[in-house]
Each structure stands twice: as structure tokens, then as C-alpha cells.
């Protein structure tokens, strides 16, 4: 059901864990299946210099978090903001249709984190 890239990111997730010196942390959960993803961002000069995630969820949710964190690492906040669930699913080489909702979490968590970072600095959220 899952392709090799998904299975690789699921069994060897990149950037998994806690970022002790994160500048912002955000958590989102899926009301449907109960998957939860937490994103930690370290930001320097408007750029994501480090990122970690924790996910409680299925293989698709874990692999999506892993891939999403890879995709935003080193990016400016503007670039990271444009990341979509389709980008994540495409980078994973596709997800089964019923699993697409599981790839939303990482994107949501990253956007929530970016907005929180902006609010913390007195900026209007995007």
C-alpha cells in the first residue's frame, strides 16, 4: 500500500524528537483519526535553521512529518509558508487516497508554528 520512500521515512524518520532550544513550538491534531503532530522550529534571520517533529499517528502521518521537516529545513519563513500537503505527498512519491488527510498535519503544524512566531514578535499572522 505504501511506496518505498514512504516506508523509508516511516521506519527511519528524519528530524524526529524534541528541539530543546526551539524558538517556537506548535501542535495540531486531526479530529478524524486522532493523529497528532508537534513541530519545533529554530529560526535565525528569518530562516528555519533547525526543525524537529513528534508524531502520534499512522505511517503516512509519520512519513509526512519527516518529509515536511526535510522540505522546510534551511528555508526562509516565506518559502516554508508556501509548503502544501501536495508538495509533501509528491515528495513522498504519492500517498494512498484514504491517507491524504494524514499528510495535512505536518503542513498545518508548520504554518501554525510560523504564525505563532510572527505573533510572538508582534507581527500580523499570515
Amino acid at each position, binding site marked *: 500500500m*505504501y511506496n518505498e520512500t514512504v*516506508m523509508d521515512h*516511516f*521506519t527511519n*524518520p528524519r528530524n*524526529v524528537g*524534541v528541539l530543546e532550544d526551539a524558538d517556537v513550538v506548535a*501542535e495540531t491534531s486531526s479530529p*478524524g*483519526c*486522532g*493523529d*497528532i*503532530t*508537534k513541530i519545533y522550529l529554530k529560526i535565525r534571520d528569518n530562516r528555519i535553521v533547525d526543525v524537529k517533529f*513528534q*508524531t*502520534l*499517528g*499512522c*505511517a*503516512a*502521518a*509519520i512519513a509526512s512529518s519527516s518529509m515536511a521537516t526535510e522540505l522546510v529545513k534551511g528555508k526562509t519563513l516565506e518559502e516554508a509558508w508556501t509548503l502544501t500537503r501536495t508538495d509533501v505527498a509528491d515528495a513522498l512519491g504519492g500517498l494512498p487516497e*484514504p*491517507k491524504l*488527510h*494524514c499528510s495535512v498535519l505536518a503542513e498545518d503544524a508548520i504554518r501554525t508554528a510560523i504564525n505563532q512566531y510572527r505573533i510572538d514578535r508582534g507581527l500580523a499572522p499570515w
Partner: protein
Amino acid sequence: MNGSSAQKRQVYMDHAATTPTHPDVLAAMLPYFTQEFGNPSSLYSIGRRVRKAVEGAREQVAAALGAAPAEIFFCAGGTEADNWALKGAVSAHRSRGSHIITTAIEHHAVLHTCEYLETQGVRVTYLPVDRYGLVDPHAVEDAICDDTIMISVMMANNEAGTIEPVGAIGTIAREHGILFHTDAVQAIGHLPIDVEAMHIDLLSLSAHKFHGPKGIGALYVRDGVAIERFVHGGAQEKRRRAGTEYTPGIIGLGAAIERACTDIEGHAARLRRLRDRLIDGVLREVPHSALNGHPELRLPGNASMSFAGIDGEALLLMLDAQGIYGSTGSACSSASGEPSHVLTAMGVPPRLAGTSLRLTLGEVNTDEDVDYVLAVLPGIVERLRAMSPLSA
């Protein structure tokens, strides 16, 4: 054992999903594909020989249930048998009423058929179960109305493994003159069955759950019970189920059920010992793990457990990577996106139901298999929990 061969160990623990066809069963089937290929309805000798073999298989199935051969009707498996029992009984007894009593934990083959029948004007009562998955026979009796025509309660549940009080329910049905159907798909070879003592009127079974081939099963229909035909066509199965018989499958079903029902108690005792070692070991080694279903009234091979704080699908796939095959009630892995209807009916919160793993043992499993699962599973749960935002 060196590292690489240790990694290649394969432990199949999903016998409730399906079982491998036993080599002896396959050997019994094979001639009926090539040499003994005749149509059992043909009058010449190769047809007559196959007819004789088909009738022999019917006797084998009947013997396993305490039934008469004329009460056994071959069909395409458990799903068809359940569909036929419900739809066929409703059509034949419509003049008497249009109410069915069943339970919230039936297999989808029963539940979705009942939902279909509701669109056709049938009223259906879905009885609740307790936290162990048990149906209360008193609740069955209380649900009976003047127009109740049928009660359908499974003999044992496929997910939680709970064994239902089918004998008591059958007695109630008989006292009220109501048909009693039981889905015994998971029970064959694991529990002794006697359709007389249990007052069963209709019973569904499927060969692939007891080391027979897939796509073949049977419906037991008590002598004298009216049931509308389900598949229309030729005169096969005494005009009740049309279509040229799947003769190799029927022979395989007969051989498999005879094997499975020889020494049920010895087989069940062996499975129970392995299962209890597995359950005790997991509950001991994995913090915050819990057994689903009844501690004693459960199928001898069923170990269904929940692991708070992880997702069942993730667990299943991590086990798969280590050569261990099980199944889960996780919402994320089901086509509907809903967590197991069985576990939720038992009052397991949806989130916890999504963490469940079902391991079902069979005759091929050994103590070494159990040791291997006990060596691998706790570490995987720990690893998944460490990845979770709830861990810190």
C-alpha cells in the same frame, strides 16, 4: 542463528484473517481440477464420481456440526452465507413479520446486510455488548417483538475474540419460535459446535479460516426451515443455490473441516497455552497495554491488545518490517476511516481503539514464535511512543 537469518524470521499471527491451505487439503483438492474435472450434474461416470465426492464433503461438514448432510448448502464463503441467511430468511418469512435482532459487533457481512434490509423496510435491533464484548441473552429476549422473525448473533467475534452465549440465545429463540442464525466463521475448529444442542437454525462457515481454500463456505439450514434462494439459476444444491459447484473447493472444505474438528480440545488447549504466554508476556513487558475482550471467554488463538499513545497501523507496519504479521483496529488503516466498530461498541474510546493490535495464533505457531514477538514488540511500542508528542 546469525543476524541475517534472525531478521528473516516470519511469524504469521493473523489466522483470524485467513490461514494457509493445509498441504493435505490441497492434495485432496488437486485431482478435482484436472482428472476428476467432471460436472457433478452430469449423468456419465466422471460426473457421477465427482457427485459422490461432493456428497462425501457434505457429510464431512455435517458431521462437524452435528447436522444431517441434507442440511448443508455449499456457497462462496462466509460473506455469501451471511447474506443468504439474512436476506433469504427475511424473504421467506416476510408474512410473519419484519423485525431482526442482531448485535453491534457482528462482521460487516451481517451488519451491512442488515443495513441494506433496513432500506427494504425491515426493522433491525442492534444489541449492545458489555465491555468484554458479551451479548446478554436477557437483552436478546427483551428485544423480541411480535413481528420478530430472526435473531442473528455470531458464535465468536473476529476482532476481540469474545465467545458469545450462543446456546442460551438459541434456547430463547426456540422458545419464542424465532429463527436463530449464527455466524460461526471464526469458531470452526476452535469451539465444539452442535446445532441440535445449541438450537441453531442457520449457521455460516468459511473454509479459509481453518486451513481450507478461499472462496468456499457453507450455510447450514435446519431441515424444515424455509429460506428463499439467493442465487437464481440451475438446480444445484437442491434448487437453493444455483451455479456449477466449485468442486475442488468443496472437496477442500470437506477435508479441512474434518481435520479442524478432529481433536478440537487438544488443538484449542495448545493454542490457549501459547496465547496466554503471549498475552501475559506483552502485558508484563509493555507499560500501559491492555487486553481487549474477555479474559476467559475468548477464542483460543486470539490476543487482541491496545497500546495507549501509539497508532495501531504504525505498530503493525513496524512489526511487518520484523517479519511479524498481525492486524489492527486503527481508524487510519480502515477503508472507512472509522476505528473498529467492535471495540467502540465495547466502550473502548475511539482513540484507544486506534491503538489496538490483533494477533491470532494458529497451528503453525510455536513457543519460539511467541518468544520472538515478545522480544520485538515491546521495543517497537517504546520507539513509537518516544516519537509521539505525548511522550514528553
